[in-house]
């Protein structure tokens, strides 16, 4: 049997709470990321968020809040560029991505003595989640769930057929920006769990597996949430028992599940 004694530690409780909230986000927002084919945009947003995190450190404010700020700005920037179409979207994302990372590394280095935190943001450190982080993450998750509930039919229409959606009067531009903003929030939360480098795997793997085996969007979302929760919980346990990095453990478990599911469904 698995020893549940670890739950007596507050840091484990916080980690688990944040991890489960993040799985709900992955399940729901991750599906929209896959269906709207904005995986690369989401990855770009995650990297750009690092610039904000660095700035937060440098100025001595909450890095998470600054990360979210810069992620949302990047999301809006990319959304505006893709609707104006002067610069190709790919190029814009590439530029944002690299600039954000460079800024982040520069600012973190200038704020003496945070090398350990740099490592944490790049590769994730779920065990460093504080109680206030966990509360913040849960509140954000609730807000995003509420938005998705209210705008379910609009987001479905946007994801399936944006040209038709625009023709029948759906505010396509505004909705797309909102979706990107929700992706931005989700991505920064996931950075806490698995780090910038691996965010995109956690955002897409549960949805990709769930979609292969289930039909109907609500069921696929539910399946994806359950898978995400399983990966995070299992990853957390294994990393605690074996004393290995949590982010990498979670992603490796998700990756193994992905390859198994691919093999089984052939």
């Amino acid at each position, binding site marked *: 049997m698995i020893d549940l004694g670890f739950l007596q530690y507050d840091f484990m409780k916080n980690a688990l709470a944040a991890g489960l909230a993040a799985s709900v986000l992955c399940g729901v927002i991750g599906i929209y990321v896959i*269906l709207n084919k904005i995986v690369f945009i989401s990855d770009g947003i995650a990297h750009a968020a690092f610039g904000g995190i660095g700035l937060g450190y440098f100025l001595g404010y909450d890095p998470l809040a600054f990360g979210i700020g810069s992620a949302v700005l990047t999301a809006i920037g990319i959304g505006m560029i893709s609707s104006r179409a002067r610069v190709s979207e790919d190029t814009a994302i590439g530029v944002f991505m690299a600039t954000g990372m460079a800024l982040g590394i520069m600012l973190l280095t200038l704020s003496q003595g945070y090398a350990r935190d740099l490592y944490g943001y790049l590769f994730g450190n779920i065990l460093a989640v504080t109680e206030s982080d966990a509360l913040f993450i849960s509140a954000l998750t609730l807000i995003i769930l509420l938005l998705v509930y209210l705008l379910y039919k*609009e987001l*479905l229409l946007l994801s*399936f*057929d944006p040209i*038709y959606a625009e*023709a029948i009067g759906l505010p396509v531009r505004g909705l797309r920006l909102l979706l990107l903003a929700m992706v931005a929030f989700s991505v920064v939360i996931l950075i806490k769990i698995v780090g910038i480098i691996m965010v995109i795997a956690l955002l897409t793997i549960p949805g990709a597996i769930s979609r292969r085996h289930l039909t109907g*969007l609500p069921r696929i979302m539910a399946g994806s949430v359950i898978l995400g929760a399983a990966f995070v919980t299992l990853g957390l346990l294994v990393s605690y028992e074996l004393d290995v990095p949590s982010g990498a453990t979670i992603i490796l478990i998700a990756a193994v599940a992905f390859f198994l599911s691919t093999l089984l469904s052939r």
Partner: protein
Amino acid sequence: MSEKIVSIKDLWVYRAEHAVLEDINLEMEAGDFLGLIGPNGGGKSTLLNAMLGLIKPDRGSISLFGLQPAAARSRVGYMPQKTVFDRSFPIDALNVVLMGRYSRRGLMHRYGSADREAALRALEAVGMQDRANREIGALSGGEQQRVFVARSLVSDPDLLLLDEPTAGVDSAQQTEFYDLLCHLNCDLSIAIVLVSHDITAISKHVKKIACLNQRLYYHDSKELSNDDIEKAYGCPVEMIAHGMPHRVLREHD
């Protein structure tokens, strides 16, 4: 006197200082079935977009049912040119059709049982009721096209705007599709604007025909003169009508 479904007066639309539509005048009444032909880039989709209220006229006016186009959306059904979608998108036919109810529900209001019943009725009207719960990607091209017609019908429109609806569908399915349009037009008396570049195919089915290339060549009838066609396409009629000009065109005298 029957209601004017479409009334376009002296419409001009410019894009980057070039006129895309020049002095368009068009009126349609209940029960009309208008075929709109013309060369690529001649402004057919622009005209439809203007009728949907997506493009503002630079000069002149458009009214549908006596209203501004954007205000008349709930009475207009629209089927875009070849819907591009992810074939593995997890959605069944019924939920695709439900999307057409958006113009009746509006932002943030969820679909109710009345919407679902309307969606089933629309699927029945196109003969797809037994496919309601099939994934859209699992249907054949012709079946998908019927689902998209059902989506344009589900808001109970009085006017249907169809932009090249038969692109990418084989000829047997095309014949069935035109029969379906005749049924909608004759039996349900829905006015239809059918955009196509295939003159011979649509001329068999529509009641009236117009040709658009910046200007609209239209005589409120099913006939266009050789002269109209030559002006619109800028080349002799025979090249356009593929050797069957008599189907559309009266002998010129």
